[in-house]
């Protein structure tokens, strides 16, 4: 039975060897030599150190293209023209599905035709040397961003390739991304990823790990996201990770977003072991964007404003072309600079908004309910607790495609635009908290002169792309 226990050294070696035989580039990984490579990197490329010592939010976009030269050029552009502090390397979908052969074909076709035949950088196919050429060429810390349920080989190669930060986790890269990968399976596989990061950490190379906070990106109630961040942080810490960046995706209500980021930081520090350095990352709105760059810039700016007030350690920016899919590098840099301008104009102002403490208190109470139910379900073991709590529906994520989560809980905005829970299903939450949500949603229903119903949920899902925060009935209030 899988539990929250550190993978023993011999087991780590066994899996490592097994996994490295999955694709030919796995053979080039040499842990000792990789440590030497990491040690040779200058301070300004050490992800954890740069992030943890920053005195204001660092900005990072999303970006990945198949060819190495293009990825280098794109990274330099985002660093120089977009003034990104931290550089991403977004991995392609085939690699996320462990389809290295298909990724190889795509990469070869990209090299022949010059087209972007893959939607990201196939780091496994580029291998250790390819990754290092990227790390060497770009004068900033670089992170691997992906969405891979089984990221073991990707981790082995990119860690050896010089990357010092790795996004994802067993819940956050399963529940929102895939239907049939069992949660037990992904937890086991991510224990290896974390253990490998822990092995580097023990040798002085602190690989930063970043659970993916936005989850399904669609009106996720803050406490659900925070509980899952804490669980993934605990799992990583058990395997020896010492630099953990907990994530949260903007819901668009400034008070709730600031409160959630405060709660994330506070509870992260409280629940994770003292030897872990906890940082936070704020994702600009991950839901549907307006099909209009001008309006999209408004959405992005509201994210910048929120970041200026909450001051997370990092902000993942969006581009004004979000609606149409992968942005041009110019649009990507534009999203960075818009965010930067708003943050730099607002961050020195004292903007203390009423009600943040109350909202934070509510989020903390909710999160503790969920952590308690996980603890109880697992009889003290967080792995078993997570599995059983998802199984019983005591822990759930709205709009989750995965068979591992019920996906029965449904959110809706209250009259102030804060995300509340409309359908609790079996989510294990204290009754008095449920009453608070119910009262807030009832207030909205009164304002709109309609009953609480799934229509609010449906209207809210589309609201921001339609130009509003709250999905009020047509004809307006």
């Amino acid at each position, binding site marked *: 039975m899988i539990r929250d226990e550190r993978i023993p050294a011999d087991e780590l070696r066994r899996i490592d060897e097994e996994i490295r035989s999955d694709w030919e580039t796995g053979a080039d990984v040499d842990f000792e030599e990789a440590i030497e490579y990491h040690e040779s990197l200058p301070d300004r490329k050490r992800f954890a150190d740069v992030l943890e010592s920053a005195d204001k939010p660092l900005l990072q976009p999303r970006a990945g293209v198949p060819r190495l030269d293009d990825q280098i050029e794109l990274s330099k552009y985002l660093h120089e023209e977009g003034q990104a502090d931290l550089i991403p390397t977004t991995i392609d979908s085939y690699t996320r599905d462990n389809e290295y052969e298909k990724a190889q074909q795509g990469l070869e076709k990209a090299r022949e035709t010059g087209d972007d035949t893959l939607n990201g950088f196939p780091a496994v196919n580029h291998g250790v040397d390819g990754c290092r050429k990227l790390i060497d060429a770009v004068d900033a810390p670089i992170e691997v961003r992906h969405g891979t349920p089984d990221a073991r080989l990707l981790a082995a190669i990119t860690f050896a390739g010089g990357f010092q930060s790795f996004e994802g986790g067993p819940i956050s890269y399963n529940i929102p991304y895939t*239907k049939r990968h069992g949660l037990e399976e992904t937890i086991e596989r991510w224990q290896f990823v974390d253990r490998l990061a822990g092995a580097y950490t023990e040798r002085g190379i602190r690989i930063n790990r970043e659970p993916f906070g936005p989850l399904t990106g669609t009106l996720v109630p803050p406490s659900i996201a925070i509980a899952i961040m804490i669980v993934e942080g605990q799992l990583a810490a058990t395997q020896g990770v010492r630099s953990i960046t907990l994530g949260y995706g903007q819901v668009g209500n400034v008070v709730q977003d600031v409160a959630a980021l405060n709660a994330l930081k506070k509870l992260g520090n409280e629940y994770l072991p003292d030897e872990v350095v906890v940082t936070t990352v704020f994702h600009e709105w991950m839901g549907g964007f307006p099909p209009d760059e001008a309006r999209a810039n408004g959405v992005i700016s509201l994210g910048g404003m929120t970041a200026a007030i909450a001051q997370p350690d990092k902000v993942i920016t969006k581009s004004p072309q979000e609606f149409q899919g992968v942005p041009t590098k110019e649009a990507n840099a534009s999203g960075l600079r818009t965010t930067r301008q708003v943050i730099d104009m607002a961050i020195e102002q004292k903007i203390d908004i009423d009600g943040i403490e109350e909202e934070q208190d509510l989020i903390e109470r909710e999160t503790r309910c969920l952590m308690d139910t996980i603890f109880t379900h697992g009889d003290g073991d967080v792995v078993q607790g997570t599995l059983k709590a998802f199984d019983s529906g005591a822990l759930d994520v709205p709009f989750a495609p995965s068979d591992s989560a019920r996906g029965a809980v449904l959110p809706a905005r209250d009259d102030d635009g804060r995300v509340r829970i409309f359908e609790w299903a079996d989510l294990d939450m204290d009754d008095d908290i449920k009453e608070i949500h119910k009262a807030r949603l009832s207030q909205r229903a009164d304002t709109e002169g309609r009953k609480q119903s799934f229509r609010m949920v449906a209207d809210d899902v589309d609201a921001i792309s339609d130009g509003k925060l709250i999905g009020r009935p047509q004809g307006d209030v």
Partner: protein
Amino acid sequence: MSQTVVLGVIGSDAHVVGITILEQAFSAAGFDVVNLGVQTSQEEFAEEAVDHDAEAVLVSSLYGHAEQDCQGFHEVLAESDVDAVTYIGGNLAVGQDEFDQTRRTFRELGFDRVFDSETDPEDAIEALREDLQITPTESERATISS
């Protein structure tokens, strides 16, 4: 009444929001809903339609590959002796400037009705009531108009 509707997202599409909203809408309108979720194969649709003796099979697709995913779908249903109304809706073509053309394509594939991604769930419910010749009860009518 309590007629059974099977719904799901076909192919390797993982868009879950639309289907979740549809599940809620059809349940609220009094249907028994079997939600197969995302990434559902043609065979799974057929199997579940048989198992639940479904009156309707509602297929959702949002990633632009619906035509490919639905080739032979109605043959698979026929093989399992599924005799249900079939609807499809969503972003059914990558560039959907001409929805009339898209509708024709999917009608030819065998679907009884074809909806675009802007369709309100109520419209689909209304259509299904018509096709199944259902009159909403007094209380349901109140719920719907409220």
